[in-house]
């Protein structure tokens, strides 16, 4: 199940960082969503972060909210999302993929049941946007029981003590926030993440992926120079979907170009 470990090892050997795009499963509809996910992988994504559409996404800015609304309007449900994931996993046995979603979707059928379903669909990790370290115990327990990695977030305002706890608890990778606020490409990641990344490294954290406000290759490059193991780009990826809803082929081509460009920036000198 150690797809993340294998990935980071391979990337190290190739002197590369990871590029991890995020999309909402079911956006804009189930069939297109499946094609989008396959396109991202074929274009060179190292891993994927995938959202489950939720009615009240408090950690997300307008771009990802709209993606959730598009998917929900097409009737997206967690069982349908798991179906799509299962199809993707059958085609791509090695790429790590993680879920990024909200607690109430996990709770609805019982935490353990949700994690089991996720494991059965080939999911490697789960990050719950509204479950901080302090509330993570029952989720972490389910993760351990099912062999799923529980991802935690290291925010820029965390105390050193909290960072140590995040480093100790997060397995697979650690999601490092590039800035405060909600998801969105409108506001660039604006912090020098070096100090944060250093502290995590000293605390023996799982590899750090930097997210929030990452939309251009030079930001990916910078994240890796500063010490991140890679970068996650959500809203910029979803913007391409939103801007090309009328022309699927063009959407897939542009996603491909975007992933190629972002991935190219992960090569270390």
């Amino acid at each position, binding site marked *: 199940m150690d797809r993340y470990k294998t990935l980071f090892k391979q990337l190290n050997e190739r002197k590369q960082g990871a590029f991890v795009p995020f999309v909402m499963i079911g956006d804009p509809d189930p069939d297109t969503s499946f094609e989008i996910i396959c396109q991202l992988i074929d274009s060179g994504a190292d891993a994927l972060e995938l959202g489950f559409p*939720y*009615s*009240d*996404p*408090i*950690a*997300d*800015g*307008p771009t990802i*909210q709209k993606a959730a*609304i598009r998917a*929900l309007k097409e009737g997206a*449900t*967690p*069982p349908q999302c798991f179906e799509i994931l299962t199809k993707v996993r059958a085609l791509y046995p090695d790429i790590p993929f993680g879920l990024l979603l*909200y*607690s*109430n*979707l*996990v*709770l*609805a*059928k019982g935490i353990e049941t949700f994690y089991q379903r996720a494991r059965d669909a080939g999911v490697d990790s789960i990050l719950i*946007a*509204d*479950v*901080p*370290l*302090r*509330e993570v115990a029952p989720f972490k327990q389910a993760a351990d029981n099912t062999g799923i990695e529980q991802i*935690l*977030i*290291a*925010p*820029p*305002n*965390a*105390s050193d003590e*909290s960072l140590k706890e*995040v480093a100790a608890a997060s397995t697979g990778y650690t999601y490092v*926030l590039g800035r*405060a*606020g*909600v998801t969105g490409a409108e*506001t660039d990641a604006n912090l020098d993440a070096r100090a944060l990344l250093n502290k995590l490294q000293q605390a023996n954290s799982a590899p750090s992926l930097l997210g929030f406000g990452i939309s251009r290759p030079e930001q990916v490059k910078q994240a890796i120079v500063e010490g991140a193991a890679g970068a996650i780009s959500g809203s910029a990826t979803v913007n391409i979907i939103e801007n090309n809803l009328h022309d699927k082929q063009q959407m897939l081509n542009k996603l491909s170009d975007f992933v190629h460009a972002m991935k190219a920036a992960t090569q270390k000198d």
Partner: protein
Amino acid sequence: MNKLESRFGEFGGMYVPELLVPALDQLEQAFIDAREDASFQQEFTGLLNDYAGRPTPLTLTKNLVSNPLVKLYLKREDLLHGGAHKTNQVLGQALLTKRMGKTEVIAETGAGQHGVATALACALLGLKARIYMGEKDVERQAPNVFRMRLMGAEVIPVSAGSGTLKDAVNEAMRDWSANYDKAHYLLGTAAGPHPFPTIVREFHRMMGEEIRQQVMDKEGRLPDALIACVGGGSNAIGMFADFIEQPEVKLIGVEPAGKGLHTHLHGATICKGSKGILHGSHTFIMQDQEGQIEESYSVSAGLDYPAVGPQHAHLAQTGRAEYVAVTDEEALHAFQLLARKEGIIPALESSHALAHALNMADEAEQETILVVNLSGRGDKDLAHVTKILGDEVNG
């Protein structure tokens, strides 16, 4: 870790993005410090008494109840400055904002009462307020929007989602995630993540304390039951808090049954909802089978919320408080009755509590003292009620 208890039995907690945890910890610490700081308490009490008009009266209804065994009292929060109980806790949190060295306040509002209370407190204390309001509510509650703006608050219509209170809360939390350094999120009810349910209850608990004193003075004994409406549940928890340890006083929360509990058009989260997490708290919520949040409905915007404060969830589960639901129609009837019989126009929210109290009064077979929290006045509802009842009233 949390310094105060963050749960009420299995309910409550702090389900927020990691980014907001330090801001909530800072708020918890400020609240703990303020509680022990005599000068804070003095300033808060001074504002409550000399600015907002506490204590509010306890009025014995003269004509409303026909059963001679029953005395029905109204706790007159409608007479508080701002027109509702909301002003109590807003003054408390506004003082905490200053204590934390923050200069801006973010708030959400549904009917506009919390927004108005926030606007007035910020005007008074020199804070910059921005208030998120669903775009549907901005239309429905135009006079309150004007009040807020008149007092210098920025009102930001929210079109995302359903364009109502829950979406305004989402937007306020998003704003806070980006601006917690200089802005306090002044949450308007006893819901949301820890420490809000505790802080809001403590800044409203004088309602119950005053009731205890006032009923003892008038009757020489405690009341038999306290009745309050419950949306998020702030006026109810403030009324109940001082009596929770005394089981001889019944505590009754009245939820909005809207068009009826057999329909989907209601906001009765305890009576009909199920356990889940919304806006940072594990509590009863309205949701579908997969955990998507459902829209609530009520004729009264202040009760139109698909979650409820976690302490109410706990009081319901332990049986210490009883939760019932009252329809739009019953609330509108009580609204008119209080106007006609007592010359008091209540808020539609409070009319729900009153409607249930009137049913209890009819059924009483022994001497009974009831207290209803008349949590707000009905001025804000007049345009809405005119549309529903205009012809009937005008004749």
